[in-house]
């Protein structure tokens, strides 16, 4: 009985256990690892993509999926810098957020109304939006050298950079919305069983559309944040965003089939990836080998997750 309980506990918290092991191991192996500075460093590294990962969590829980975030991210960085030079910073942030929401709306309507597979829709919009960003800047980065931009992107509050505060804030809001509101529960319901949710009177089309709008807006927000941080916008930003973010969500334990998962899980997935990469860099492992490890971890976690859930009833369902 107790053995079974421990086994279950281990199964449910596999990411946490793995994370703990890496942190303890690295604390002994490396002096720099266990320090405030390094943790801020890790969080800074994961926070830019991390906020988009929360958006992706919404989409995946709803049974959908978005490849176009990487292009939205790049286009937003370009658009923000371009407009901030003309109409000022705050209006251009609002403009870029609206643009992200609009892109999300287009994706969402094509998926929910027209009924095309999300993978296909967002593959196509990814190509088009990337084309717009490249065409706009002719592939070159554009700059805004003002002091305010630098301050917003690199400023700190009590030693914690603004971008980490944003990252934690979005985590809290996402977790609250998913757990405590009707809106969140309906997203789970829509992703868990589309037909049942529809029959139960949930406006499934609305929820399928809104998750894309959330995701598009968050991608636009983070494109702006990276532009603030770098003081420049480029059509080449975020090339690996979509798939990295999906990987983080999946490693955290949110299933691609929809209906399950949470923002906290995604946070743990992000943290695990961040800690592993930080450790490998501190241990002087080259970037190529880091990629091999990244791919292997992804495959291992997904395989383990599926295999461990294949007991009893689910094993019968999944032939």
């Amino acid at each position: 009985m107790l053995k079974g309980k421990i086994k279950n506990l281990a199964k449910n918290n596999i990411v946490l256990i793995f994370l703990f092991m890496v942190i303890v191991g690295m604390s002994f192996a490396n002096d720099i690892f266990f320090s405030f500075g390094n943790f801020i460093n890790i969080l800074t590294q994961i926070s830019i993509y991390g906020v988009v990962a929360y958006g992706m969590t919404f989409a995946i829980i709803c049974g959908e999926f978005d490849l176009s975030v990487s292009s939205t991210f790049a286009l937003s960085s370009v658009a923000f810098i371009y407009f901030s030079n003309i109409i000022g910073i705050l209006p251009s942030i609002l403009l870029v957020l609206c643009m992200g929401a609009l892109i999300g709306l287009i994706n969402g309507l094509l998926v929910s109304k027209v009924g095309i597979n999300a993978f296909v829709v967002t593959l196509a919009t990814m190509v088009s939006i990337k084309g717009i960003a490249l065409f706009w800047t002719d592939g070159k980065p554009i700059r805004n050298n003002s002091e305010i931009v630098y301050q917003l992107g690199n400023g700190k509050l009590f030693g914690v950079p603004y971008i980490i505060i944003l990252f934690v804030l979005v985590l809290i809001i996402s977790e609250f919305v998913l757990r405590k509101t009707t809106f969140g529960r309906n997203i789970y319901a829509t992703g868990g069983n589309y037909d049942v949710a529809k029959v139960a009177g949930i406006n499934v089309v609305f929820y399928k559309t809104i998750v894309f709008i959330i995701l598009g807006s968050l991608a636009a927000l983070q494109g702006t944040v990276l532009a603030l941080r770098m003081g420049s916008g480029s059509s080449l930003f975020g090339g690996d965003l979509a798939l990295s973010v999906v990987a983080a969500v999946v490693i955290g334990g949110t299933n691609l089939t929809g209906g399950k998962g949470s923002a906290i899980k995604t946070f743990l997935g992000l943290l695990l990836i961040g800690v592993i990469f930080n450790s490998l860099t501190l241990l002087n492992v080259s970037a190529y080998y880091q990629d091999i490890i990244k791919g292997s971890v992804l495959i291992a976690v997904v395989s383990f997750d599926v295999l461990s859930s294949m007991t009893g009833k689910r094993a019968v369902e999944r032939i």
Partner: protein
Amino acid sequence: MDKEKGSQKKNLSATVNKNLMDLVRMYPVAIMLVLVIIIVSFFAENYFTMQNALNVLRQISVIGILSCGMAFVIISGGIDLSVGAILSFSGALIINNVKSFSTIPAILITLAAGAAIGLVSGFILSRIKGRLGESFIITFGMQTIIAAITLIYTGGIYQSGADERLFTSIGRGISPIIFFIVVGALSQFFLIKTNFGRNIYFIGGNINTARLSGINVNFYRIAVFVLSGILAALAGIVLTSRVGTASPTAGLGYELDAIAAVVVGGVSITGGKGNMLNALLGVVILGVLSNSLNMLNISSYPQMIIKGIVIILAVTLDAWNRKREERC
């Protein structure tokens, strides 16, 4: 005996009818293709020539070969994101092996490497009984790993210097086109005319029913990925021979191009529907489109915008057709 023959005849006419219906469904896209060709031929010189047609075919042959493998995987209900990385890897592999052995063993080694990578993906997926979502993640992991291995293997620099005649002739003149057509024809044959192909449709359509009717589901799941790996390696060989050098990132993004082409050709991404000829029509459409825009002196960035819109148009028309069919 006679009765059997009669029912066979009925089946045949049913399939002919079905193929006709498929053709009708393809009409919007085919019409789009014809319109593009007619309009552009008014504006661009040297467009409506044999030379240019061969040019287009040469350009699409690599993506075409990739798309055949991709179509097998997608019809079986999976997806393979690792083919672009396999293409880069096999390019480096063929150059170095042609230099150290000769062409024939080098080709065999490269194809075997492609098959081995496909075998690994397929094996993992069959063990964890993965569907579309899992195959997406697992093959993305494989892509990351293979791309990194390619960079380590090549040291990140271009590989060149394989100038054996047999090897360079693979990519010269019309031979890529011949490879493309042969692979396409064989794929269509296997998919439509053999048990192998029918079982792939069955698995893609409903995997549980397929399993319960006694089909060795795991075998086919592995087989489609092995096939996709081999064809990706072949595409890598053809591309490398045509270009003469192998870039360690030559195949970057090719998997998405192949998926786009297959989907524009009306193969359903959720599996079980579509056929090879339609998929190859998708390849031709995107190839002709890109060639036409080149001929009109439209630079590559606006081309991307147009390409995305065309993909959406094609699949939207397809989705509407399907809805209308369901209503009938």
